[in-house]
């Protein structure tokens, strides 16, 4: 296997390791629910439904297994003029968003994140394809980062 992309040198700021808990909870609950449905369908003798949900359960398990690696892959850099975000090990994705293009920044907290004191920052530009969410930020850090980025976006505001 060829080496992974490493397009930008420099320090990536990583997300909290506690995010593993959030992702585990999501993947594991998916696996458990899918497994229950699969077993129920098997008992009722609906073969194809059982098989489909068994596959979903296995996907959930794999997703849970690679959750730690996935969480380690999240990273971001605040460069002079743009925010750089990375995610993914198998499917790598790097996105650069100029500060002036950020239309709004959401802070979201799911139930598990809230229990662990984490937030995620969602960035919205005029392009739906941008699709950047930084998960697993401690609440204080998320709010500070949001305020800082909103400030930066305001000073560098450009048209559409």
């Amino acid at each position, binding site marked *: *296997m*060829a080496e*992974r*992309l490493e*397009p*930008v040198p420099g320090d990536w700021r990583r997300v909290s390791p506690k995010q593993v808990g959030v992702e585990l909870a999501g993947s594991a609950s998916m696996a458990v629910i899918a497994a229950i449905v699969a077993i129920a369908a098997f008992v009722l003798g609906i073969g194809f439904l059982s098989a489909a949900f068994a596959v979903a359960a296995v996907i959930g398990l794999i997703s849970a297994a690679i959750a730690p690696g996935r969480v380690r892959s999240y990273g971001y850099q605040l460069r002079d*003029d*743009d925010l*750089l975000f990375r995610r993914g090990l*198998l*499917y*790598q*994705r*790097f*996105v*650069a*968003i*100029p500060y*002036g*293009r950020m239309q709004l920044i959401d802070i979201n907290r799911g139930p598990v994140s809230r229990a662990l004191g984490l937030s995620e920052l969602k960035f919205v*530009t*005029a*392009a*739906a*394809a*941008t699709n*950047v969410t930084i998960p697993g930020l401690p609440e204080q850090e998320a709010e500070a980062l949001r305020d800082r980025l909103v400030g930066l976006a305001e000073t*560098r505001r*450009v*048209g*559409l």
Partner: protein
Amino acid sequence: MTEPLPAAPDDALPVAAPDGVPDPADALADGEWHRLHPATPFLRGGVAFLAILGVLVANFRDRLVELAVGFQEEDPVDLLIDRNLLLPVLGGAIAFVLIGIVGFYLSWRFHQFRVTDEVVEVRSGILFRTQRQARLDRIQGINLQRPFLARLVGAARLEISVAGQDANVRLAYLGSAQADVLRRDVLTLASGAKRGGAPAVARVRSGLLEQRVDELLAPELDPSEAPAESVVHIPPGRIIGSLLLSETTVIFVLVLAVGIPWVAISGNWYAILGVFPALIGMGGVIVNRFTRTLRYSIAGTPNGVRVGYGLLSTSSQTIPPGRIHSVAIRQPLLWRPAGWWHITTNLASSGVPSASSGNVAATRLMPVGTQDDVARVLALLLPDLHGEEGLLDTSLTGRGGDDGFVNAPPRARWLRPFSWRRTGFTLTSSALVLRSGIVWRTVVLVPQARLQSVALVQGPLRRRLRLAGVHAHTVAGPIAPRLEVADADVAVTLFADLAVAAVTSGAADTTHRWNASGSAP
């Protein structure tokens, strides 16, 4: 937003002259509140109301005639008389008509708009007031439509698009000539040029009828609006040809060619019933495309690109500079012998395309044209490309290799077995040009100043082949500008270059006020 009901003193509101003759002193973009064309209620659905009224009147006229002649026949009116219900029913009908008329009149009176230096503002509604503002420097385009009925009475519909879904400001209806002037004024104000240009060209006309006829016969594009050399027309013959060579037509013909012999041989005539609706639908699509593209013209005006079309119902759209987020030039396989191309665009305002709002022009800007036309339209759409004439030929028909484009390496043939030679990109000073497709040739241009963000992606397959993809993110539309395969190192460099270019061109861009240094024409 609510606002106290306007006192609306009559003298403060210069109501449009009913015949829509533009009075130079009556320019609508003067910051005052104005009302719409008096025929608006009828054009916006009042026709049905009139028809009901007509039926009522006709019935009672028949009744009067019968009374006079002395016929006696059983009809609803007789029944009403027999049961002594004539007066209540007649009264009810008259009250209904009166309420309708008053309602339409009031809604017309309360529907007002104004154009200031900063915003276009519309307020409407009798009980539930709504108010909508559009900032002039955020205008994405202005669409001027004249449905056939409205054209007959000399009215036009002006739609000012701003970014976002369902965020347009509609002024329906205005006097036809007034709408032209208003569009020009709004664009001039939005361009940042100083207010106070020459007054509207006053047209001397002898009478109402002649004026109507003049307007109906006038060319779709006013010659004074755009320099003639910038205008691209599409001859009707080419439109017919392009439709005949479209995928829809081919499927249509195939269905007929297979279906008719099959039905004739098997004698299964009922099968026709099943296919018939689909055939009618496809035929409708073809006819619709044809009528929409008749008298199609694309022209450059000082305030942007103007796309006009239509024979009976006409529509023309002006897209100011810097509102085009990406451009795709494509060639369907069947068009290759003829050398035709079509051009689509991503616009911030297009939203969901619908047949009624004229968004056909919004997304498919040039329905069909030769390579020469493509060059001229592209010069209008992306004027910054000036001086890169050779680029277009290479990008449209180039076969790849060492031709100025950075193309995919041979190992990309695992992912792009036919088109890898041609799949590549080049960066000009102002735009990213992506080339792909050997069967369906495609060229996508993205102005760097419109880039919202940039992504670099690599999955397991591309990693094994040392390839990567670069996605340029623009506003939603029919085009997704993506370089799907490139050498991994090249992609990393392109990603870094685009990230810098997006910032610098975005900051240097002044097209939101595209003529701020100039003065009104």
